[in-house]
């Protein structure tokens, strides 16, 4: 479905052009080009090892933590190529938040987890204690966690249940006002109830944030995403509205994958 869109380009939040990525000699991404629409939930699907997590992590340049990674091509977010030499990684990651596969709250209090981003970006110093408190309440309310933790804000976040931890991990992105939220299989460590809660949450964030979610769970991709990208062996195979990808795939590989014939 790519290319048939008639929408003006300013409605794209992320524009990827000819993105290639190598881990040493292994090419994990091959000439990926895609435009991701603003305010929608875009699902990234494909069998293990197809490069979907690598692709996701190249959108906030998190891949670069490992040495020997080489990237070519351009990724434009908010109109700027994030691989330009003058891009500040701190600012990029402020605009592009990330939620991980396993909930990873920092080993500090719930409160400090929420304001961590502000402290890192020196935004906390400009705010009064009361403003910080309000931001914490707002963020936790947004993820439906405020009522559960409002009395234990200064307890360590690592003692929460996994579901609460993952909600917290989403909440701590919000004070930084990101435009994009990347989610790497955010429900794979959670039970059915936790999964449902996170999905409800994503639904509430839809429209205000551009969400890109990697998932192994086909049913989840269908439930949560507006558009879907199917990847295979480091290449983008198909991209379009989720309904089309699942019901009227244009490529044989996509059809076989969504039917569960492999992967």
């Amino acid at each position, binding site marked *: 479905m790519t290319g048939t869109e008639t929408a003006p380009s300013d409605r794209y939040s992320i524009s990827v052009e000819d993105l290639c990525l190598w881990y040493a000699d292994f090419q994990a991404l091959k000439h990926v080009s895609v435009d991701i629409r603003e305010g929608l939930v875009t699902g990234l699907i494909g069998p293990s090892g197809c490069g979907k997590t690598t692709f996701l992590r190249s959108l906030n340049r998190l891949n670069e933590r490992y040495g020997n990674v080489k990237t070519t091509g351009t990724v434009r977010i908010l109109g700027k190529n994030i691989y330009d030499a003058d891009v500040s990684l701190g600012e990029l990651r402020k605009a592009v938040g990330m939620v991980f596969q396993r909930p990873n709250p920092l080993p500090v209090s719930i409160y400090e987890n929420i304001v961590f981003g502000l402290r890192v970006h020196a935004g906390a110093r400009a705010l009064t204690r009361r403003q910080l408190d309000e931001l914490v309440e707002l963020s936790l309310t947004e993820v439906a966690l405020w009522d559960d933790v409002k009395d234990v804000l200064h307890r360590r976040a690592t003692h929460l249940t996994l579901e609460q931890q993952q909600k917290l991990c989403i909440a701590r992105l919000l004070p*930084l006002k990101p435009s994009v939220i990347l989610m790497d299989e955010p429900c794979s460590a959670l039970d059915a109830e936790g999964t449902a809660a996170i999905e409800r949450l994503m639904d509430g964030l839809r429209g205000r944030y551009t969400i890109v979610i990697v998932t192994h769970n086909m049913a989840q991709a269908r439930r949560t995403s507006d558009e879907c990208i199917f990847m295979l062996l480091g290449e983008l195979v198909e991209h379009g509205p989720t309904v089309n990808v699942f019901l009227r795939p244009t490529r044989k590989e996509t059809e076989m994958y969504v039917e569960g014939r492999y992967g």
Partner: protein
Amino acid sequence: MRHAAALRLSRLAEPLVEAIIRLCGWSAIFFVFAIFFFVFREGAPMLFGALDLGEFFTSVNWRPDSRIQAQYGVLALLAGTASVTALAMLLSVPAGLGAAIFVSEFCPPRVRETLKIVIELLAAIPSVVWGFIGYMVLNPVLIAVTGAPIGINILNGGIILALMSVPIIMSVGEDALKAVPDTYREAAIALGASRWQVVYKVLLPAAKNGLLAAALLGIGRSVGETMAVLMATGHAVQIPHSLLDPVRTLTATIAAELGETVEGGDHYRVLFVIGTLLMLMAFLVNLTADLVVKGVRGKQNG
């Protein structure tokens, strides 16, 4: 048939292996108590007999050989141990923890391996060689730099001890940092933290117990070290007034004098009382470390 025989053998072997392992575990505890007991036994007749504990801890007069009146005051020796250890810690804790942070977080992998091998090589140098370095190399350097009449003093001993403690502090500290789950680092980085912010906002708080243990192990090493300080600190019984004063430590006193004493004599027994004192100090350091670590953990759970 063979299978059955093997089964029988394993049925016999397993309890045997278990018993041996249990014995190993208990023997460690047994030996610690045995060592303490024998050291204490040699010192006890003096400790409960002629020794005046008030004088022992408050007097600076260490005159065990005096024909007229032998005096056993260890205050100066305690001051010697404390001053050399304190200086060594002041130098080695920042250096060791800094090295641990660099090796674990900032260093490219290839440099890391080389660096670790070199630093661990430092730990393999015998302490008498360190003493020799203090005596022959650092001594003239300190005389030239500070203008002190002699270069074997607190400064010399502290530097030598610090060099000896750095490898331990670094390797234990690095283990502590490596034990911090990588997900913490990713979480902080993904929120925009720089590498240095990751270190002081996430890793140091997360690894503080392990880093504290590293520092305390370094202290234990410094308090107990004997040969190097014997050679590098000047061996003068006095309360030091500056870094350039020679001192004598508790350990060096035992090492230097025990061979000259009459077995069973007062001097001999007092040296064992000092040994008991050193063991108590080591025990206290370890206990404090344990309690601090447990205390921190308890608060986190609460």
